[in-house]
């Protein structure tokens, strides 16, 4: 509103600048020749001064004086003959057009190219307004301004880092996480965030550097879902799809029902399955997407029951078709994770017997079990 008022006032002022002289009385002005006479008189005076300084010889000064005198005569005649113009009346139309042109042209063009509704947005004011109204960009800028002033504020970096990652500004996320770790110490969340940001910088590749960060996170908090998920992704990226799949499936089993990671893991499992299928290997029969979705929507008892059922199904399959290292590994781990240690050891024994104690596969199963903290001896 204020804008329109000011714009109207400006237009009014500009129109008056055109209108007033046109509406005013004709000024009586000197004929142009009169101005010339003044200049010629001054030239004469200057000529005398120059002659006095010897800048012009007396003879030439005389000639010059005659030249100027001739011009004065001519100008005097012109002044006498010339009319002091007071103006004709036929130009009224042009005057009206000129006065009208000011508002018409300016408002016409401005409506076409202006943005009258857009207020000024000085940066300081944008950063000071209520955070609830601010966009993410503005909040980030505000935090950046704060951190530029207080670079030792670890908490600030901690808050900003995941936002950077969310916005896809991974370079800055890496810096922010590193600063947070440097200032406030390592935590599983910061280390895994750093790993995620490093992976983001590398275009999604979980690099050795990122893996190191995730491993540190797992040391600080075993079972941390983000670290486990990305480490599994690293396996998949290295071509060890089966191992990755196993890790994800294990996550599926152990993740709490309300974990936000379930969706991502489920998708990863499905992709891994289809990758294995595409590679020509028969996919190790794991839970299908429908089954996983079903799991996600079940109650806790139902889910336990379903898992029990799946494990039992696996157990049954391995009795019929025992030469399946991966199957035995899954079975051992399933029992182990479900906390049924005896059955896990039993499965290990059966698997070892089926694969052969001294065969490569048998040894592999033993190693795998050892890594879970199981030995056949117990």
């Amino acid at each position, binding site marked *: 509103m204020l804008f329109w008022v000011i714009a109207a006032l400006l237009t009014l002022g500009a129109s008056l600048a055109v209108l007033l002289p046109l509406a005013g009385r004709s000024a009586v002005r*000197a004929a142009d020749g009169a101005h010339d006479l003044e200049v010629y008189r001054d030239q004469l005076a200057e000529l005398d001064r120059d002659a006095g300084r010897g800048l012009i010889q007396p003879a030439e000064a005389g000639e010059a004086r005659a030249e100027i005198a001739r011009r004065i005569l001519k100008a005097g005649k012109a002044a006498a003959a010339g009319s002091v113009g007071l103006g004709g009346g036929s130009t009224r139309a042009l005057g009206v057009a000129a006065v009208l042109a000011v508002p018409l042209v300016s408002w016409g063009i401005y409506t076409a190219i202006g943005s009258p509704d857009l207020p000024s947005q000085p*940066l300081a004011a944008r950063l000071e307004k209520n955070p609830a109204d601010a966009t993410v960009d503005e909040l980030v800028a505000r935090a950046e301004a704060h951190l530029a002033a207080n670079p030792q504020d670890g908490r600030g970096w901690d808050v900003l880092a995941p936002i950077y990652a969310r916005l896809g500004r991974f370079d800055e996320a890496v810096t922010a996480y590193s600063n947070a770790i440097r200032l406030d110490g390592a935590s599983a969340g910061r280390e895994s965030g750093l790993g995620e940001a490093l992976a983001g910088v590398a275009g999604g590749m979980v690099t050795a550097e990122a893996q190191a960060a995730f491993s540190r996170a797992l040391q600080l908090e075993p079972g941390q879902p983000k670290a486990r998920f990305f480490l599994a992704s690293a396996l998949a990226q290295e071509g060890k799809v089966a191992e990755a799949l196993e890790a994800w499936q294990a996550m599926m089993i152990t993740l709490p029902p309300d974990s936000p990671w379930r969706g991502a893991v489920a998708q990863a499992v499905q992709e891994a399955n289809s990758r294995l299928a595409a590679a020509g290997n028969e996919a190790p029969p794991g839970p299908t997407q429908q089954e996983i979705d079903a799991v996600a929507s079940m109650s806790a008892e139902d889910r336990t029951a379903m898992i029990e059922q799946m494990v039992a199904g696996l157990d049954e399959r391995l009795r019929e078709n025992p030469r399946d290292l991966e199957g035995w590994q899954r079975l051992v781990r399933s029992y182990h994770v479900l906390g049924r240690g005896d059955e896990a050891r039993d499965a290990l024994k059966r698997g070892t017997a089926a694969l052969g104690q001294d065969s490569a596969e048998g040894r592999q199963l033993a190693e795998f079990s050892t890594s879970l903290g199981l030995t056949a001896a117990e």
Partner: protein
Amino acid sequence: MVEIGHFALVLAFALALVQSVVPLVGARTSNSRMMAVAEPVSMAGFGLVLLAFAVLTVSYAQSDFSVANVWENSHSLKPFIYKITGTWGNHEGSMLLWVLILTFFGALVALFGGNLPATLRATVISVQGWIGAAFLLFILATSNPFARLTPAPIEGRDLNPILQDIGLAIHPPLLYLGYVGFSVCFSFAVAALIDGRIDASWARWVRPWTLAAWSFLTGGIAMGSYWAYYELGWGGFWFWDPVENASFMPWLAGTALLHSAIVMEKRSALKIWTLLLAILTFSLSLLGTFLVRSGVLTSVHAFATDPSRGVFILCILTVFIGGSLALFALRAPSLTAGGLFQPISREGALVLNNLFLTTATATVLVGTLYPLVVEALTGDKISVGAPFFNLTFGPLMIPLLVLVPFGPLLAWKRGDVLAAAQRLMTAFAGTLLAVLATMLFIDGATVLAALGIGLATWLVLGALTDLALKAGFGSASPGTMLRRLTGLPLSMFGTALAHLGLGLTTLGLVGVLSFESEHILTMKPGETTEISGYVLRFDEIAPVQGPNFTESRAKFSLLDAAGKPYGEIVSSKRFYPVRQMPTTEAGIKTMGLSQLYVSLGDETADGSLVVRIWWKPLVTLIWGGTLAMMAGGAVSLFDRRLRVGAPARRRREAIEPAAAS
């Protein structure tokens, strides 16, 4: 309030249209009411453009990134002074500054034009209105600085780091004051052609405008040269770069105009030629604007290239240059010629000056446009560099410089060369001494350098001789001399100062070109090197965090031959992360008139640093001389002649005749 600025700009365009038509029609039909529209409209137009410019500046100061122009060229972390100067450190903003200065000059003509004949004043202001309307339309149509962004980004893209320098605060405004100042001379010339007659007060008005524009242009070019010298890190001050030439051509033509306007003012001679020069000078200013703004040339000045802008400016260029020259061809034959003079006379000397200067302008024009024409016709990229200009421009300038001291000593209408030469004997003797001294004491092998020094001495002594003779040196008592000296018109001091400055600049050029020494070496902290009698010690290099850059700052100690500390030099390399651009900040130590220039190169693997060191003898005189030229222009401006010509003021002057001289 951004939109207020936008609206003010549009309104200024509407007023410029009225200004282009109404006063002109009034002048042609002797309608004094319509002529009277000129003054308020041109002042209101200036006020509106000023408002628009102020709004844009505030948007920059407040980092309002909802303005696209601010977002493209600013950054919230930029130091405040560069936020302000950034307003014109880009295409749109610089065009707005151009128009601001144009309307400013238009308003000045309206404000101080009381002693001009009314028709001339109305026509001049109308012609200013044409230029203003054309450029305002250009801004609104192709380069609107008030284009908005929504939603507004939260951070800008920063200004080109090379432009983040105090030079940006000085160089463009001065240069534009010069370029655009010539628009007034142009308007006067076109007005005279439209009128079909040249009033006697015409030259009285054109000369001060030429002087003012020329002084500003001189300062703008000198500042640009010094800026390039310390910022680009090569230690060069003039590259015959097309963009530099674009500003140099109007300067050369303007210098010619300045001199021919004297003849016209004093003797009413050379009228038609002066008109033509006024048109040519502003045409060259327009050409410069076109070359720099259209993106035809790539350089630090071509902020953004957009073909539509180039075509638009080309149209403006064609209409104004073609139109004014056509008008000239049509009307010039009917203009009456003025006073007579002999070939050997002050007038003749000034004509000679004009011949040399316009030929030099043509040379630079050819050297600048030839590569563009070749590229347009054949697609080949060729460059016409320093060798071409040294071979053509140099030989033209040397005889001109030799002749400069003669000019002010020749009498009007008919002069005596022999008498003038006799009076210059002292200056000539001094010149010979300077040449001999250079050959004996500095370097006997460089005859050319010694002659160059001699030429500079000749100019300086010639300027001083002029003043001494006019004061009556040798023929009057000291008291009389002082009285005569203080009684001289200011314009004579202006002439002497400007010619003196020319000599000083020549001395600086010869000094650097002939006696400069350059050392390139790798240094480690603690190492020393010797240069021109001084010892330079590399103390340390350390990283420094700037507001919007990081910098490697190297400290050097300067010791004199005896090993005593003489001073410190800090030279650094900066990196601006937003634009991902490095810059060099040369370390410069001024000693007397000479400078030691230290610039950093790359760091080598073993931790040592490539350091380039130049010893630049007398280099400061290059710019010091231009300051003297500017001062000469300013002194001349205060000469009383500007105030003559108004019939109403006749009586007041009669009361105080003593003030006249």
